[in-house]
Each structure stands twice: as C-alpha cells, then as structure tokens.
C-alpha cells in the first residue's frame, strides 16, 4: 500500500465558536499535485494553517508519511520538509531580492545554494537581485516567495492562493514552475479560488465547500461536473 505524503482524516477546526472545518478528509500522494478548490470562506486557508501547524484543530487526525502528527509546531514541521507559501507572498519589502534569499539560509542551507536554486528556477530574479522586494511586481514577489520555499528543500509544499492578484500570463508561468517542482518529486497541495490554470497541472482535485471536502477526482471529472460551482465563470 502506498502511504500518502499527507493524509487528513476528519479534521475539525474552529475560530472561537465558529466552526470552519467540519470533518475534512483529504490525501496528497507522494509526488503529486493536488489542487484544493472552493469558494471564498470554504475553509481552504484554515486547512493549510492546520496542516502547517499554525492553527490547532479541535479534532481529527493528521498523518504525514504514515505517521500520526499531533501538536507539532510550525517550525518543527518546516524543518522536517513541510513548507508553506502563504497567501500574500510575505516577502520583506525593504530588503533586496538577494537579502530575502540569504535570510532563508537559517534553515541550514548555504546561502549560495539558496541563491543558485532561486535563480535557476526564476532567471528573472537574477536581474532583480539588487532590487528592493517591495518594488517588484506581484508575480516577481511570488517568484521570490517560491524561491525561498524551494531553498529549504521541501518534501511537501503548501501553496495558498498562488494566483491571487496576478496577471494570467504570470500565473501560467508560475504554474509551469510548479509542475517542474512536482516533477522533481515534491508533493504539492495548492489552494485556488479561481483555478482553471491549477487544473492544468494538478493530478488530483478536491473541492471544499462549507468546511468539508465535497468532491474529489481527477481534473477532467471535476471540470465537467462542477465547473459552474467552482470556477464560477471566472476561469
């Protein structure tokens, strides 16, 4: 039996009295790209926070590589190879691109290696290496955020709203990179609200609504059956 890289079983989570996740079941196979789709407020970002250790679920189980994980901190999970690219990129705007990359070396990877990996995936960052990150375009900031994540040698990558605020051409370019990362054996869970591009690179798709995963399948199945619900005509 192939053990999935990530398995979420019956996960519940709440903010105070408001229950956001109501029994989420999800699996990310090793080396696969899973697109998690759903409308705004479905609980996608909360699920990412629970997986990455930023939010404590109220009940349910979280399995990483066939091991039950409970009460693990975000830093512990990051050191084990679980890396999250949060919504909004979260780069240091007053630091240059190269300084942003060197900061990631605290994870134990040499700074030169980090820079080499970043520039190999995104050659455009080499041109902007001395530019303040706050002055980069949205797509370039996303590239920088992804570069920081890749520099930590992730085994499981969580992407939260990669395409938010970006032009379609940039989104296509970013997802080509995502596909390349997945080809290297990294398992990827990417969350999207408008996800036509994500469906092109995803191996599997899960649809969340109302705090639950309401549909899973391959992209073609989901595209046919839930195009109106998920894509909302915006794709």
């Amino acid at each position, binding site marked *: 039996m192939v053990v999935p890289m990530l398995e979420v079983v019956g996960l519940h989570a709440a903010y105070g009295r408001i229950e956001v996740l109501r029994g989420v079941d999800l699996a990310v196979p090793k080396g696969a790209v899973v697109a998690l789709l759903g409308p705004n407020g479905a609980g996608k970002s909360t699920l990412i926070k629970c997986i990455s250790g930023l939010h404590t679920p109220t009940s349910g189980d979280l399995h990483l590589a066939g091991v039950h994980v409970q009460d693990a901190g975000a830093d512990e999970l990051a050191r*084990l190879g679980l890396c999250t690219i949060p919504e909004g990129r979260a780069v240091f705007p007053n630091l240059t691109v190269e300084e942003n990359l060197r900061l990631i070396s605290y994870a134990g990877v040499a700074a030169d290696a980090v820079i080499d990996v970043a520039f190999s995936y995104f050659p455009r960052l080499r041109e902007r290496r001395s530019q303040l990150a706050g002055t980069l375009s949205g797509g370039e900031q996303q590239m920088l955020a992804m570069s920081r994540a890749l520099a930590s040698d992730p*085994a499981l990558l969580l992407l939260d709203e990669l395409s938010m605020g970006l032009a379609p051409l940039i989104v296509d370019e970013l997802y080509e990179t995502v596909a390349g990362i997945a080809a290297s054996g990294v398992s990827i869970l990417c969350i999207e609200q408008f996800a036509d591009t994500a469906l092109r690179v995803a191996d599997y798709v899960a649809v969340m609504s109302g705090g639950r995963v309401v549909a899973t399948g391959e992209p073609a199945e989901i595209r046919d059956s839930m195009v109106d619900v998920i894509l909302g005509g915006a794709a």
Partner: protein
Amino acid sequence: MRPFALKFVLAILVAGLAGGLLPVPAHAEAEPGFSGYSAEASASPIQLDVYEPTIPVPATPQLRLMLGYATVEADSSLSSGRASFLWPGDFVGEGFRSVIDNLGLPDELSEPIGERGYPLQVNSRHPAGPQRQADEPVPGTVMRTSAGAERTTARAGYSSNCEVERSGEDEQPPESPSPGTPELPSLPGRSESSTPASERQDSGECPIPPQLAALVDVGGYIATSETALTGGDVVTRSRSEVSDVQLLGGLVTLSGVTATAVTGSDGAKGKASGSADYGRLSVAGQTFTVGPDGLTAPGRKVRLPGIPDDPAKALERLGITITVPRPDRTVSGDKAISRSEGLIVDVDTTVLRDWLDALPIELLAELINRLPDEASELKSLLGAALQLSPRFVIHVGTAASTVDTVQGIDIPLPGPEPGVDAEPPTGTAPGGTPEPGPAPETGSAAAPASTGEPPAPAVANAVPERASAGLPPLFSMPGALLFGGIALASLAGGYLRKLGGLVLGGGVVCQHGLRTGLPDLRKV
C-alpha cells in the same frame, strides 16, 4: 345328515370362522400422499378498478368494484368461503366499519350500519361456522357458500334466468322448492335468504344498478370457486363467466368471456390447467374477434370517420386499450398455480375528456355555484368532480387457483433407556428354558429369541447410537475454551495498550493504528 352334507356345513363354518378371525385387509381407502395442504381459489367475472388520486382513499386503486366475487381458502385444518355478487374490494369490504365511521355520519346511523359489515356477502367457515350461508338480496342474484372438512365452495352471480345455480359442475340438488321469482328454480338453503319472497316477486328482473350500468353492464355473470379433497388429491377450481358485456354505455360490447383455472396436487406433483374463452368484441359498431393472438377484425359494420384501420390504433384513439393477458400455469413440484384472465380493458378518460368538455359542463358548474355558502365543502367536492379524469381498468373474467402440499416430518423416537439396553432382551426361566423377550429395534438385534443366547451385538450397537443423540463431543470444549481465551486476551491486551499509551504517552495514540511522531519528510 349325510356325511357329504356334514362336511359341507363344516367347511362353511370353518371358512366363516377363518374369515372372521384372520386379519383381512380392509378396503384400501385412498390415503393422501401429503400431510398437509393449502389451497386458494378466487373468481371474479368483472373487476372494475378506478385510479383517481384525488379520491381520498388510502388504497390503490382508489375504488374497486367486483361484479361477482367468489373466493375460498382451505388448508388441512381450516377452510373458509366468501361469495358476493357485488364486492367493493377488500379495502371497503373488509374495512366497512372503518369506512362508515369515517364518513362523519351520526352515531345513531353509523353504528347499526357499521356493525353489520358489508351487507352483500355471505361467508362460511369450518370448523368455526357457519358451515353454510346463502342469500339473494334481489331476484336474480345468488350468493352461496359452504365450508367443510373436505369441500369448500363459494358461488355468486347474477342472471335473469338464474343460470348461476345451474352453472356448478357438481351442484347439490335443491332441498326445497323456491318460493321466489317464477323464473328461478328452487335454490338450496332458500330459507336462509334475507329477502322476503313477496319483495322478490314484486321487484321482477333485477338489472345492474343504473348508475353502474353507464360504465359496465352485463347480461349475466357467474363466479364459482371450490376446493375439494378427494381420492388422495386436493383439487381447486375457479370459474368466471360473463355474457353480454357493455362498457361505457355500449361503446364497447363483448358477447362473452369464460375463464377457468384448475389446480391439483397429489402430494408429489402438481397440475395446473385452465382456459379463457372469448366471444366477439364490438367497439362503436366495429366488430372484432378476440383471441389469444390479440384482436382481429373480421368485418366492419360501421366505418368511423377518422378512425384508422388498425383495431389497436382505433381503440387507442378512444383511450381504450384492450389486453389479452397470458395465462399463468406454474407447476413447481407439488405446488401448482393457475390464473386465467379473459380481457383487461384500460379506459383512460383523459383522452375522452376532450369529448366530455363538449358537454354543457359550465351549466353544471353554474348550478354548483348557486349552492349556499354554508355547503362550501360540498361545492368544492362537486366542482372537483367535474374535472375528474380517472382511469378505469376493467378485468373481464378472472379466475385463479393455487394449491400446495407439504410432507410430514419424521420425528426420531427416543431410544430405549440405558439400563434396559444393558440387559439381555431375553430372560431365562427358572427351569432353564429361555423366554422370548421383546424384539430390539436396531437391525443387528434381530437375533432369533428362541435360541436362548444373549444377543450381545444388540447391546454393543445400542450404546453409541444413544450417545450420538446427546451432548456434543467433549473434545470440542477445551478447544473452545482455548481459542476463546486467546481472543479475550487479545482484546484485553489491545485495550491495555491503548490505556498505557494514554497514560504514558500523553494521549497521542492514533485511532488509525499509526505510530505517533514527527517523520522526516525528505527521507520518505
């Protein structure tokens, strides 16, 4: 007396004594080849089903009316029969009291009506009784039923010349002359009739009620059902016969339909037979012959404009579908089922609704609207009735019978007592002469008792036979204890492990059986 005569008389005496003393086999009464049986038969010449969901009756179809209904049920111990010349279906017929109670009538009126049950029926039961019941509510109608240990019959029908009584294959002879209608021959059980003779004489020929005749009118009909236990066989018969059927005010006419269903069983093999004979069918003057292959049109009296030649299509244009059902003859071992049905006429009035709309219904609606507002419920009901478009399904000539038998169960008799078995079956007289003892039941114990030797093999064989009928072998108990103990220990161990994990591991036990920890994802 001469010696020859003496010898002759002695020979006669000896023969007489021998005949009286020797066991002579009695006359072999035909014993049935079964221990029990169950049989059912029912017949209904005309069955009208009305499907109209707006009728507030919790049954499907919402209304049922059977012109002639005879049913019998019998088994090895009980039997019952019912006959009715106008049966409103089991929902109303059986639950007549509930139907009356729900009509909202005053108690003074509903109580006496409901207590009597549905009036147009006769019932018989055996052994509870009544063994026989008969009634003729109106002249020309006959309802008879009788129940007995070996024969149960039910017969109902209507005929202007009382053909009902003569239709039986083995009807009992009349007991007394009938004082009823002159055309009627004497009917058995006439004294049980509930209708006074004077009324029958005055009423004359009894037609089908005019309200019903607009939909179904028949010249006569007969329904008979019978179960009989004769000659080691159980036989069940049912027969429906109807003649001169007129449907929808003569739009559809049938000259006659006869359906029979016969089943029998001797305990080893069942038999099923029957037949359905058809007459001629006429629809709006167009005459067809109905047979097992469907409808054929031998001639055309009146050609209706706009009606296609195909008879089936012609009927469909009128909303009428006529089906010739296939007879069911099923024999499964000793069980037999037979069902014959003449015709099924399906009248969908939604098709005819367009024609009815041509009638001055609006005048009726106006009259209904003039009713006082106090009768608003009645107004709404009448208004809805104008818009009804029910579906009528008319089954013409239905006969069904079923018979089944069961064999007895061989119950093993208990063996002899252990103390008795241990002793030799033969004893020795004080004088040393062996006395004949009772013959053992086991085969090897059939040693000749006159030999005087103790039949040791009989004792040896009797012990294991008795032991096999007792408790299960003892060796199975230790095994059951061993494996049961292992299962219990495993269960307890699992719970103890979980308990230990909760106490020592801070409650981090995974309910899916996975180990708890922090894996290095890069090394997976």
